[in-house]
């Protein structure tokens, strides 16, 4: 990768388990641990994993809705790299113009008491962009871009008057109105029905091209990731276990977890019978995990070496395909 927009290095987030008001925590939930990746401008990187794998925490760290425990997040801005992880005050506010987030549930992410105009204009007001008339024009333009036309018929309605698909379009408009270069999209289509979902997927791709937006696309659905992302990173218990170009990852998964995950995805064609790869048990707790490979307890190919050594680092197996496994 020659050009990089976002570069994450050794990013970790631990949540302390409280033991009482004045007692220090000894146990931590290792939600994200030592995660590194890079995203090129205009690219869309998929972050895929099961619930509790740390995908959403990673997304929230990248937009600084959470402060990292350790690590760096570099964002390229006007030719130089800025470490987001340590931004404060005015710099942090300016950063919010460049990085935005789209949330999963359009029924929860919109304030029911704000009109669509107020919802989309709010980030502009916070950032002090334009006067009332200019903002109205910008909001109208944004509504057209997300396919809510004519804008005048949507501007002064409330979220409860819109369908799920329309609400998600409003949420997208709100995220993009300040002109961000990087957007974290957290399962933006998982609450929507199939016939509505495709429209939102195409809209997001179209806007990425038109406005030059780069996505971190968080999803649990590999089939959606296949259509939305050029590359996919698979997370398991706070770690990235595999990362590759989308088709490469789906056709030639190397990590035993990725293989099991792919083999469990149902196929919308009764003629195709899947090769089942069974793994034991379920995702263990991320509270103070032992230093060995996170997948050790469930891995079908783990041996004594995996038990005695630390979690394996991501290593390059060629062609930009990275795997964190000693045995793969």
């Amino acid at each position, binding site marked *: 990768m020659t050009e990089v927009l976002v570069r994450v290095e050794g990013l970790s987030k631990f949540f302390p388990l409280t033991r009482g008001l004045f007692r220090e925590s000894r146990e931590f939930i290792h939600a994200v641990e030592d995660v590194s990746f890079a995203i090129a401008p205009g690219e869309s990187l998929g972050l895929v994993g099961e619930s509790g794998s740390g995908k959403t925490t990673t997304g929230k760290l990248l937009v600084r809705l959470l402060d990292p425990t350790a690590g760096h997040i570099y964002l390229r801005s006007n030719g130089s790299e800025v470490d987001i992880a340590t931004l404060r005050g005015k710099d942090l506010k300016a950063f919010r113009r460049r990085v935005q987030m789209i949330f999963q549930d359009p029924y929860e992410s919109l304030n029911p008491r704000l009109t669509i105009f107020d919802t989309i204009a709010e980030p502009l007001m916070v950032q002090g962009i334009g006067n009332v008339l200019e903002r109205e024009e910008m909001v109208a333009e944004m509504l057209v871009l997300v396919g809510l036309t004519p804008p005048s018929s949507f501007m002064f309605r409330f979220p409860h008057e819109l369908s799920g698909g329309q609400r998600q379009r409003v949420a997208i408009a709100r995220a993009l109105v300040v002109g961000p270069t990087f957007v974290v999209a957290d399962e933006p289509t998982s609450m929507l029905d*199939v016939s509505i979902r495709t429209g939102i997927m195409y809209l997001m791709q179209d806007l990425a091209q038109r406005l030059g937006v780069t996505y971190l696309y968080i999803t649990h659905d590999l089939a*959606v990731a296949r259509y939305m992302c050029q590359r996919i990173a698979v997370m398991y218990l706070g770690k990235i276990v595999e990362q590759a170009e989308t088709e490469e990852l789906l056709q030639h998964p190397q990590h035993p977890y990725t293989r099991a995950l792919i083999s469990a995805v149902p*196929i919308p064609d009764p003629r195709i019978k899947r090769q089942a790869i069974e793994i034991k048990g379920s995702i263990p707790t991320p509270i103070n995990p032992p230093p060995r490979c996170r997948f050790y307890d469930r891995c079908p190919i783990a041996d004594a070496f995996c038990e005695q050594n630390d979690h394996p680092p991501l290593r390059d197996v060629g062609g930009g395909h990275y795997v964190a496994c000693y045995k793969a």
Partner: protein
Amino acid sequence: MTEPILYVDDLTMHYTTRAGDVSAVDNVSFTLTKGESLGLVGESGCGKTSVAICLLKLLPDNARIKGGHIYLDGVDLVPLSEEQVRRYRWRRISMIFQAAMNSLNPVYKVGDQIVEAMETHLENFSYPAAREKVAELFRLVGLDPALMEQYPHEYSGGMRQRAVIAMALACDPDIIIADEPTTALDVIVQDRILKELRAIQQKLNMGMIYISHDIAVIAEVSDCVGVMYAGRLVEKACTEEIFHHPIHPYTAGLMSAFPSIVGPKRELTMLPGEPPDLLNPPPGCRFHPRCPYATEICREQVPEFKDYGGDHFAACWHPLEG
């Protein structure tokens, strides 16, 4: 063909709301034979779950069956009183609900809850026999019988769903209705539950109605598929036919809008518009405002749900070549 155990004939159900009547189920007809798995697929609000609650007659206060019949082994369930309905509910037809978390009482041990369900529904109930039966069911759904003594919060999501399946099987029903039982689960757990449910259904030779919005899941668990749109059944055929020779444009649209991780990466097509408001459904074919083939007749007359041969039914004025 074997005699159907369930025959739903022209079922129509409305919800009364302050804004007017919502026509949630409109003239739905289908049959189910012993050992057959029928997938009922459609988007939210298309009436899938409403059909299920009609079959069990678990109707909320504002819901009314306006017409039609539900024949279970030849007996029409629609006119039966609540007292009479109790004799077949759970014993003949049982249901796995969508939210496993909410279908278990958090303050009772899981084993006791299933025993209680048996006590309510079975005539010759004996406590030791029921305990023995629950232990057997736990083994069947892949749970350790020792877990009977635990509370729902001690279970993981997948375990809870298994317990709910065990509860649905408690009275040896002939028909089991599964309403999105895996929607809230992760894909690896979902895969296991689907396989187990399908194996149990085949082993016990039960009829199953599997409700889902996910056509990939439907493809895996069903012998036959019924596609619902805006309260109507628009197409029904064996799974292979539905997926490879759809007749109704909505079915075809649903298939081509659905992404898959195998096979060539084909273009996903987009259905324009959104499902209609059932307070005021469009006249004629309810799909016509979104249908690329719609003509005058579609806007005026309701298409008949007709047989295209080989048990392939569809309701469309402009059927696709299949």
